[in-house]
Each structure stands twice: as C-alpha cells, then as structure tokens.
C-alpha cells in the first residue's frame, strides 16, 4: 500500500505544480467566468425541463424516471468509451512508464494509480456536466445536504464502475493485440458499443415520451411508459435510487446502493487482479512490436508550402488513433442522420423547417467535438516538432496558413454536407436546406480558427496523451467558447428563420430590413469569432513566448 500512496501523491504533486506555472491570469479568469456562465445556463435550462416534466399530471414522475434513465445511460456509455480511450493513451502507451516500470514499486500499485489517472481524465467532464443537473434535481426535490451527498456518492460509485469496465475492456484489447492493433480492435468495439447504444435508445423509445398522441388512450400510454426497457440495466437502478433518495425511501435506496457498491468492488478487484499481472507484459509487447513500414509511401510534392500541407495530411492519416476517432465520428453522424430520417414528424410542414433550424445547433456541436479531437489535438501534437519549421527558411505566416488550410477546407466542406444532408433528411424546403448548409459551413470555418487559437494560447506540446490534451484547460475553454458562439448565432438567426417560416406558410411578408440587419449581425459575429482568433493566432505563433515553449522553456 505504501507504493500506492507514494505514486498517488506523486501524481497529485504533478497536478498541483501545473497550477504554479499559470500564465496570463487575467485571460484565464475571463475564460473561467465564461465557463461558469455556461454551467449556470445549463442549470437553468435543465431546471426548466425537469420542472416541466415533474408537473405533467399523472405521468410526470414516470416520464421523469425515463428522462433521468436516458441521461444516466448516456453518461454510462460516455464513461465506458472515454475510459477505454484514456486507458490506451494513459496506461499502455504512456511514456511515463519508461521511468516508472524500472522503479522498485509493485505492479499492482502502479497499475492502480494509472487506472485512477485514466478514469479521472475520462470522467471529469461528465462530473462537471452532472453538477448543473444535480443542482436542478436538488431544486425540484428540495434535497437536504445528506440526500444530496447520498445521490453524489451513488453517481460516483456508478461512474467508477463504468470506468473500471472501460479500462478492463482496454486491458483485454491491449493483452490480445500488440501495438497499434489495439486501436484497430478498439474501432470495432466502439462501433459495436455505439450500435448498442443506438439500439438501446430505440429500446428506451424516447419518442413515446414526447408523442403520447400515438396511443389510443392514457392507460396505454402509462403502461408503455412503466414497462421497463431493460430492467436489469444498472442505469435503470440508478434512476430508481435517485428517486428513492429524493422521496426519502431509505430502505430501497440503501439496498440499491449496497448492490451498486458490491458491483464496484467486484469490478475494481477484477481490474486490479488482471491489470496488475499483465501491465509489464503488455507494455513490453507494445514497445517491441511492429517493423513500422507504412502501407503507402507517396512522393513529397514540389514547392515548400505543398510540402508542408503534404506533411500535415500524411502525419494525420497515419495516426491510427485519429483514424479510429474518425470512424467513431462517422458512426455518430450515421446514427444521428438515421434518427433524423426516422423521426416521427407527421405531415406538419413547419415542424420540419423548425427542426432543420434547430439542427444547426446539433451539427455545430458535432463540428465542435470534431475540431477538439482533430484540430486542437493535432496542433498540440505537432508542437514539439515545430523546431524543424522554425529553423527552416519558412515564415511563420506561411507555416500557419498551410496548417489552417489543411484543417479549414475539410471542416467547411463537412459542415456544408452535414447541414445539407440532415436538412434533406428532415424534408425541409430547398431554401431552408441550403441556408442551414451554408450556416453550418460557416460554423465549420469558425470552430477551426477557434481551435487553433486555443491550441497555441494554451499549448500542451510536451504530452502525447490525447485524453490529457483534450481535457486540458485550453480544450475545455475552446469547447465552451465554440458552444457560446453557436448559441449566439442561433439566437441571432431565430427571428429571420421564424419570419421565413411564416412567409412560407401564411405568405406573410417578412420585415426585410430587420432580417437583413440580423443577417449582418450573424456575419459580424462569425467574423469576430473567426478572424479575431485567427489574427491573434498569427501573433502568438511568431511571439517570443511561443518560441520559448517550443524550445521546451517557458
């Protein structure tokens, strides 16, 4: 146990030391406030939804249970998948193990500490997002401190169990497949898990919650709602546990919590038993495997800038982690589009236009997540190699422009296609489809510029742990800022979209000047969120401070 505490305190010291090197405190305070505003916004939004659901006569509690189950289910899937990814980069591909493995510490302790680290990287975002939800829940049920603590402990144990499962799965993959094949195998597993999630979402049938009109009478609706999708699934229990704690039904709550805790102890014991025994072997095999001959070798194109773009593309495409992430993204997009296509919208035309408009937000979130995963991490992963470009006869502007182009063009294209296809799936009018596709391509452009800005402003150049890069301060603030931008443009465009809709249905004349003004505001907002960060990125990239960081000195 002494080894375990020593290693854990080492990790804590490293974490605390990262706060000592705080640069630009004013900037950090500003963006932290932005993050707090975002969380507050989420709280008010969730509170409205929960208040609405709980006040629905007769069926309110049951619908709430379903809704909470859905939220917990999504958290569970995210925890398992993130833990798998995090375990691969934090445990098995960790550079740190080169230093720690030769140390006279017990394998089990080392594995336990690395597993905790992987789980923290995987879960902390879920915990942050759960805070406004918990606050909203507490507001509705008027929870006292004890009840709140009980709910938090239950969620913590649940999340830890899911993470242990994810790390165990990653360990299995790492043990079976050496080297890069872990990731290839992970792609398949991710696909299956995501497919399973989609299946289960269908099993939960959230459309029945919101479409009571498809049932003949209320009794049918109630019995459908009360019918458990998967009665043995742990997230169903957790939602029942929350309800039991909130309503003061302690015997039931204690029983479910006890079962949960036993599950957690079992999962953690299995993980530590297996992980502690196979860690050294897996790490040795991963490092020793592969002759490293790429499948294809392409000629470097003529011209300096073409050579830079070629290098960016080839390094990206040969990174199997990035490719597997693209596969996951593709799977998510496919699920999203299928859901859109199969959505029970009826024949009311304006609903389709309305959903096409709201769809801009969903596409924006997909683009933001993709920019975090590919652009932000891509820039950070390239940081330690910038010495080659800085010492070459290339101007900083040339290097950056080439990098921008490599990422911007696919994102603008991806945004346009995603906006157009999802609009088409909603069977919206061609004008609406084109307009949303155009707006989505603008979002694609903006999020790339933001990702570059935050990557060079808060660089994570000395790590190749993707989970660590994504969950760094810059990554989080990038996400918050991008979501802020998407919310801003949706607010600006809401009125023109409404007038456009009224014009199509009732032949009302839209106030042209005001619509044009709001359209101009959209352009200006996008310009501000794209070109200001872009200009700042150029300044930072050629600054002394950034060069010091590239040289490994801050």
């Amino acid at each position, binding site marked *: 146990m002494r080894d375990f505490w020593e290693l854990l305190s080492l990790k804590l010291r490293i974490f605390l030391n990262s706060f000592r090197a705080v640069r630009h405190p004013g900037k950090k305070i500003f963006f932290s406030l932005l993050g707090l505003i975002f969380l507050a916004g989420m709280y008010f939004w969730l509170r409205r939804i929960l208040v609405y659901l709980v006040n629905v006569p007769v069926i309110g509690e049951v619908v709430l249970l379903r809704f909470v189950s859905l939220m917990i289910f999504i958290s569970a899937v995210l925890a398992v998948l993130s833990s798998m990814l995090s375990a691969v980069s934090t445990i098995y591909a960790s550079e740190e193990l080169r230093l720690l493995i030769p140390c006279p510490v017990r394998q089990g302790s080392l594995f336990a500490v690395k597993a905790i680290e992987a789980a923290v990287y995987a879960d902390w975002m879920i915990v942050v997002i759960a805070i406004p939800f918990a606050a909203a829940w507490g507001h509705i049920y008027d929870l006292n401190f004890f009840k709140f603590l009980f709910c938090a402990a239950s969620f913590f144990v649940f999340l830890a169990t899911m993470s242990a499962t994810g790390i165990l799965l990653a360990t299995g993959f790492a043990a079976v497949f050496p080297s890069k094949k872990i990731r290839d195998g992970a792609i398949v597993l991710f696909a299956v898990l995501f497919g399973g999630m989609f299946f289960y979402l269908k099993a939960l049938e959230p459309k029945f919650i919101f479409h009571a009109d498809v049932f003949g009478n209320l009794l049918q609706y109630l019995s459908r709602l009360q019918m458990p999708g998967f009665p043995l699934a742990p997230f169903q229990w957790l939602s029942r546990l929350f309800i039991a704690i909130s309503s003061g039904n302690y015997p039931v709550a204690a029983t479910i919590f006890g079962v949960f805790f036993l599950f957690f102890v079992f999962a953690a014991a299995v993980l530590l038993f297996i992980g502690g025994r196979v860690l050294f072997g897996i790490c040795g095999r991963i490092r020793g495997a592969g002759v490293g001959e790429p499948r294809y*070798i392409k000629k470097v194109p003529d011209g*300096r800038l073409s*050579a830079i773009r070629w290098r960016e593309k080839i*390094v990206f495409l*040969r990174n199997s982690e990035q490719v597997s992430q693209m596969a996951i993204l593709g799977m998510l997009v496919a699920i999203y589009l299928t859901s859109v296509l199969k959505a029970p919208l009826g024949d009311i035309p304006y609903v389709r236009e309305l959903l096409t408009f709201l769809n801009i937000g969903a596409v924006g979130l997909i683009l933001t997540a993709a920019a975090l995963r590919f652009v932000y991490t891509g820039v950070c992963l390239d940081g330690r*190699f910038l010495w080659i470009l800085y*010492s070459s*006869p*290339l101007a900083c502007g040339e290097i950056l422009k080439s990098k921008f182009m490599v990422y911007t063009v696919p994102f603008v294209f991806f945004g346009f296609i995603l906006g157009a296809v999802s609009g088409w799936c909603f069977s919206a009018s061609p004008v609406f489809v084109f307009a949303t596709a155009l707006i989505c391509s603008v979002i694609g452009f903006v999020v790339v510029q933001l990702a570059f800005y935050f990557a060079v402003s808060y660089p994570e150049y000395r790590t190749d742990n993707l989970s660590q890069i994504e969950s760094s301060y810059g990554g989080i603030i990038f996400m918050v800022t991008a979501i802020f931008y998407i919310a801003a443009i949706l607010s600006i465009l809401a009125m023109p979209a409404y007038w456009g809709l009224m014009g199509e249905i009732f032949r009302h004349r839209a106030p042209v000047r005001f619509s044009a003004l709001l359209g101009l505001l959209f352009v200006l907002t996008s310009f501000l969120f794209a070109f200001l960060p872009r200009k700042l990125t150029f300044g930072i990239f050629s600054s002394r401070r950034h060069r010091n960081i590239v040289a490994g000195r801050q």
Partner: protein
Amino acid sequence: MIKVENLKHSFGSFEAVRGISFEVSDGEILSLIGPNGAGKTTVLNVLSGILLPDSGAVEISGTNIFENPRKAKGITAYIPEQPYLWGKLTGMEFLNFTRRIYDSGISDEELEKLMSEFNIFDWRNRLIETYSHGIKQKFIFLTIPIINPKVILLDEPLVGLDPIAVNLVCRMLARFVKSGAAILMSTHVLSFAERIADRVSVIDKGKIVFEGWIKEILETRKSSLEEIFLKEIPR
C-alpha cells in the same frame, strides 16, 4: 561566418544568456563548453531562428537573421540535442521533405550513398517512431549535405551515435569546413572538442568566461580542456 553581438535572452525572470559576443570565421569550428544550464543550447536556438532574443545582433554570412530570416536560415543547418522528428514519416520522407523546404539540388543517388555510409539505408522506409535515438540523429545529420549550408550549428552532436558514426560525422564536418563553412557546436565531450574544434569558448551562467585557441591551450599552455573547464567554472 557567424557574428554575434551582445546577445541577451531570458525565460521569464531567468536570464539564460547575458550579453554574449563572439565570431566564427569561415572554415572554422568554435566549440561552446560549459556546465548544464549555462546557456549553450539557448545560444544555438537563437542562432537557428527558433528563439527570438531580448536584444543583440546575429549575422549569418553577412545577413542579419532577424531582418532577413529566410535568407539566413536557408544557409544554416541545425542539429538539435533532442531529435524530435515526426514519428509518422519514414526517414526517407523526412529527408525528401527537407529537400523541398530548402530547395535542395542533391540527387537521389547521392542521398542513398550517404544513407549507406551511415548504415541507415535499410531504415529509410520505416516509420521514424520505430527508430532509436542514434538512428534519428543519423537521419538529422543527413540534412546537412541536403542543405549544403554555410553555417552549421550542432547541439551535443555525439549523443547516441556509435563510434563509426562519430567518425563519419567528423569527416563530414571536416569536408564542410574545408569548403568554407563556419561551425558552432556545443558539447560536453571535451576530447571531441579538442579533436575537431579550432577555438573554444567556456560559458557559465549566460556569459563567456574564457576564450582560446585549442592548439594554443594544448601546445603552449600544456593544458587540457578539462583543466581549463574545471579552473574557469567556480564550484
């Protein structure tokens, strides 16, 4: 020729280089020696264009590196201590990339001959992420004939190299010196500095504390670089 005047560089409040001046003539090798953290790598990073100094002037073959960086960098080769290379490129792709960036006229045959000499020909089509430190260092050394520089900057050039490679590096550097290149290198291997350098500068705490000709130190003073090092650096 390298001309450095009153160069200063700091990292935050830490002054790494405090007003250093020196010159390296064409066809000459100057060796920078000094304890860890003395500022040697910082000087080389500024000269290679990676870092921007607080103040001071640097000329590479008569070109001010801060006023005309493209021209100055185009005739400078830099070999860093840590060979960070893109792991997802092959060695051959990295060299070809360097050829494009520097508009090099070196032929495939010449490059292949050099790879064979350095015993890395069989590695050329494997991903760099599978290379050892020494193999990476050898590939970086091959950028020197690609760039065909007038100035060569070397930061701890021997780290990770086998004795055969050290010999090859010495021969390569001698060839470039003969053709008029100026070489500035930092090293902790004092015997290597004695073997190939013409002059030596000892740096401590960001300042040059001793300068001298190697020949003069070895023959007239009957001293060695190690003795000079131990004498000049206060413990």
